[in-house]
């Protein structure tokens, strides 16, 4: 699908892939400029992230961004750093406002734009296209 889309200046195509590794394992992924890998600070999530990053490198995805999500403290960041052998590009804190938005079926932005998680994603969005 990405290959069939016309190149349009100023357009951003953002794909929410299926959970796990198969959606990246399938296909060549050469159409993807940037793979954002979301990882929680526990081993099974970090293992999926590690495999995603390895596959993205093997498939020549140019840029790989690691987002540490639902982070409670420095130990969580240290776990991800040590497991993946790299510093996360963004750290999103555990945020009750996100859980509440999820429960309400709302966007976190509409529920609480000033929440810490949205603030951290604001910084990531600013850097994502540079």
């Amino acid at each position, binding site marked *: 699908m990405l290959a069939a*889309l016309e190149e349009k200046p100023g*357009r951003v195509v*953002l794909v929410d892939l299926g959970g796990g590794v198969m959606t990246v394992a399938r296909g060549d992924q050469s159409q993807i400029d940037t*793979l954002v890998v*979301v990882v929680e600070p526990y081993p099974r999530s970090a293992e999926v992230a590690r495999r995603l990053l390895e596959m993205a490198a093997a498939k020549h995805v140019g840029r790989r961004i690691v987002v540490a999500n639902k982070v409670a403290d420095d130990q969580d960041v240290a776990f991800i750093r040590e497991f993946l052998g790299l510093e996360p590009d963004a750290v999103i804190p555990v945020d009750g406002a996100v859980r509440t938005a999820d429960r309400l*079926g709302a966007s976190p932005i509409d529920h609480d734009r000033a929440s810490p998680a949205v603030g951290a994603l604001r910084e990531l969005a600013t850097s*994502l*296209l540079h």
Partner: protein
Amino acid sequence: MAKIAVAGKGGSGKTTVAGVLARLLAEDGHDVLTVDADENPNLGISLGLGVERTERLLGAREALLPDGPAIACSMEEVVDDFAAEVGERLRIVQVRKFDHFRPG
């Protein structure tokens, strides 16, 4: 044109991250086309479409693109026809029924 994919273990919050990033990029003035390729298609909710409209999106996808012969038009036309407007400069399209798409 930037092409970004968001991946991670199921439950990691990747759909929330994708939805919020898309909203913020659209607010920054980019023309954002989001593509929900997840088997649990909840991206519309994270974008702010709401549960009911997101569910109707699924219904539209099923109704408009039934299993059958490939569609003889460009992908751009398919997106224009089937993408839902979330807001100014922000659209969402379901992808799974595009598996057999053939540009023609």
